């Protein structure tokens, strides 16, 4: 019996050792980084790298504006009647550069998820015109099946707005106050049907 136990131990030891060593190993990640030090972060994290307008400001503003718009009875009517909305460029009145389309584009995407339809405008309009011309004037397409010129639909409402800032600084502190204002305007009458604003204060110690 003693011999059997001893033999069993001798046989099991390498197996147990291999199993324990295997448990200590790490698995390789599906990653090619070349020791670059680059990594992916959380796009929804609060970003406080500088006092400049950043991703968190854009995300918070878009979220607040969408929530505010959805609460307005007119927006519910726009959804119900399937009326069209267009976004005019948001004016950047601050001294720093950032793409204001980030705000309006995000709001339009979030509104569309709730049933609002919007039409292309601004920079995207040229692509739309180019495609219509290509289909109708290039002679390459079957004219019975092309999208016809003159059938685009105009929006009933437009969204526009502005971003303003006040900057203050002394030897120790830099303080920036942002105000982002958005409006929903009936295009035919020019009446502002809805407006809201988001205030943001960012302070940095120098």
């Amino acid at each position, binding site marked *: 019996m003693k011999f059997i136990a001893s033999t069993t131990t001798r046989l099991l030891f390498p197996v147990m050792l291999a199993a324990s060593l295997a448990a200590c190993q790490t698995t390789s990640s599906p990653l090619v980084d070349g020791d670059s030090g680059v990594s992916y972060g*959380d796009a929804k*994290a*609060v970003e406080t790298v500088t006092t400049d307008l950043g991703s968190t400001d854009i995300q*918070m503003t878009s979220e607040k504006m969408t929530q*505010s718009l*959805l*609460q307005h009875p007119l927006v519910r009517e726009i959804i119900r009647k399937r009326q069209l909305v267009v976004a005019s460029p948001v004016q950047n009145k601050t001294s720093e550069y950032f793409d204001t389309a980030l705000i309006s584009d995000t709001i339009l995407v*979030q509104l569309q998820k*709730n049933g609002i339809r919007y039409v292309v405008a601004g920079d995207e309009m040229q692509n739309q015109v180019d495609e219509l011309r290509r289909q109708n004037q290039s002679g390459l397409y079957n004219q019975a099946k092309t999208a016809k010129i003159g059938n685009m639909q105009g929006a009933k409402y437009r969204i526009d707005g502005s971003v303003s800032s006040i900057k203050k600084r002394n030897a120790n502190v830099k303080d920036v106050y942002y105000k982002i204002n958005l409006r929903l305007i009936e295009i035919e009458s020019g009446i502002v049907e809805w407006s809201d604003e988001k205030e943001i204060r960012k302070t940095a110690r120098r």
Partner: protein
Amino acid sequence: MKQMTMIAALSLALGGVALPLQAAAAEGGSIASKVEQLGEMTYLTFTDMRAVHRDGLLRVQVTLFNTSASNEQLFYRFRWLDADGFSVWEEEPWKPETIYGKQSKVLNVTSPTLKAVDFRIEVQSPSNSTSGHQHPASSADNPPYR
């Protein structure tokens, strides 16, 4: 969970019918059941939470109290759910909120979609403690800010 022992009412009013629930209750409508903490809040406590379904949107009001005399930083975001517990909106951005010493702060939020009938609030504070069991992805050492 000790922060939630304070008796506070969560009125979850769906379809116009208010259902007042106690914070300490184990049912799905208690404050504790709606809150997901990353770590455990050391100084911030939920004192009240209300939700009402109005005009197709879920409106939530949360009241937090800072038990400390110093300012506390809070990071929060909501998760919007349908009746079956599925998420009906994209992951929200974390939002920062400063709560002054001994201040009660009210957060008013409306769901960004008409599909939401329930919610969870995810909260983190840099002062959170990490003692005890917690979700592996949750840690006060990894706050949601950069």
